[in-house]
């Protein structure tokens, strides 16, 4: 059987695709920023905080890393409203993605923290600096710089992972594609275009992060 490709009705809807792609980037960006902010706090507390706190954060990280994002999405989307928190699909999606990224980023940042040469920390202690200042001035800066590439790839993974939030009816590229599919019935073509758009975004952001890494940290090389 031969199949005639018809991209016409799909390409006519390019503003919708563009809108969907922008929503995807927005969702990935928001959840990356929020997740990162949480992760910095979690990573520092896990490495330098009291034992029980470190243990709790470790448990959170392992729980998130060993369960699927889709289940986490459902959990946030169904459980929080039942517990009395008003939450629409998009907010639930952003929240779940942030919580997910926070766990992975905690591990990445912690690896950066632990890679600080202990001589530096000991020098700080010898100079009489207190723990808080050592963490802030000696450990955190270089750690964040060294993990920048890993965080860049985490953002790219966030773009890919965000396609799952269409399952709870949040708006982004895959959800937009589902709508277009129902209008045009050109299922195959729709997802070829969608896949191409994701690929373009991922490749573009990979280049972006490689470039910014080079120019942001030129002085450190």
């Amino acid at each position, binding site marked *: *059987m031969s*199949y005639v490709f018809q991209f016409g009705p799909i390409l006519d809807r390019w503003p919708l695709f563009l809108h969907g792609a922008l929503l995807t980037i927005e969702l990935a960006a928001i959840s990356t920023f929020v997740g990162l902010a949480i992760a910095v706090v979690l990573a520092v507390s896990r*490495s*330098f905080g009291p034992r029980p706190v*470190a243990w709790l954060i470790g448990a959170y990280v*392992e*729980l998130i*890393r*060993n*369960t*699927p*994002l*889709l*289940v*986490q999405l*459902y*959990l946030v989307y*169904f*459980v929080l409203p*039942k517990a009395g928190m008003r939450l629409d699909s998009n907010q639930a999606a952003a929240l779940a993605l942030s919580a997910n990224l926070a766990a992975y980023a905690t591990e990445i940042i912690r690896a950066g*923290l*632990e890679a*600080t040469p*202990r*001589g530096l*920390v*000991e020098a700080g*202690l*010898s100079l009489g600096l207190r*723990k808080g200042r050592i963490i802030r001035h000696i*450990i955190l800066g270089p750690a964040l710089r060294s993990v920048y590439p890993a965080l860049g790839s985490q953002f790219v993974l966030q773009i*890919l*992972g965000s*396609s*799952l939030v*269409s*399952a709870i009816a949040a708006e982004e590229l*895959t959800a937009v*594609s589902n709508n277009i*599919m129902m209008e045009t019935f050109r*299922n*195959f073509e729709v*997802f*070829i275009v*969608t*896949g191409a758009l*994701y*690929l373009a975004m*991922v*490749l573009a952001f990979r280049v972006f992060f490689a470039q910014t890494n080079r120019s942001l940290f030129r002085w450190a090389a």
Partner: protein
Amino acid sequence: MTLREFGWPELQFLVFSVRWTVLLSLIAFAGGGALGLVVAACRVAPSRALRRAMDAYITLFQGTPLLVQLLLVYYGSSFIGFTPDALVAAALTFVLNTSAFFGEIWRGCIEAVPATQWEAARALGLRYLPTLRLVVLPQAMRLMVVPTIGYMVQIVKSTSVASLIGIREITRTAVMVNTVTFEPLQVFGTVCLVYFAICYPLSVLSDRLSRRLDRTRAGGLGDVFRRTRAARRQYGHGFTPG
């Protein structure tokens, strides 16, 4: 209409649906592993065209969401003349996707084997495939174990995406049970625990093995503070570490 209670039969129904999750994971691991070996072998092959082609293949699968790949295969198969079967589409997608990731992971391990091994084998008159099979792979195998086990966790988790094309593995079953009971915390909490029970041991195993390969790793930075504090208690405040 009243809601059903989340009781023993529902719990059983939910937990036993994990067999489909396990089945999908095993298919992805076995099929993706076999194909991934081919991908990795092509990725380090002497032919530049082959290397380029496999690079494109890997980029394609790593640069698009698994859900989009799944929908593409699912709808695509119906348009090219097959009846769309969710299980076949899911198995095919997972095998292809996993092969791309394994291909890339294993390529790294193969390239970590010193180039002198290739040169020595060549000097002995071995060609590309025998060299890979008899000389390089056995040495790369040691490095392959840890990331492979680590990636198995990803495979198990990613099978949840198959629920979105209607395969009744545990995530899909959870959505169904949640619809009739509306006890989301119990339902999805149970599902989380089931996934955790499968994935966490694998994570721990891969962590332990990687630590064994990397014995030099010392205690964390937290220890420096802790030891200094302890020493200062003992020797007074003038103590400096080092």
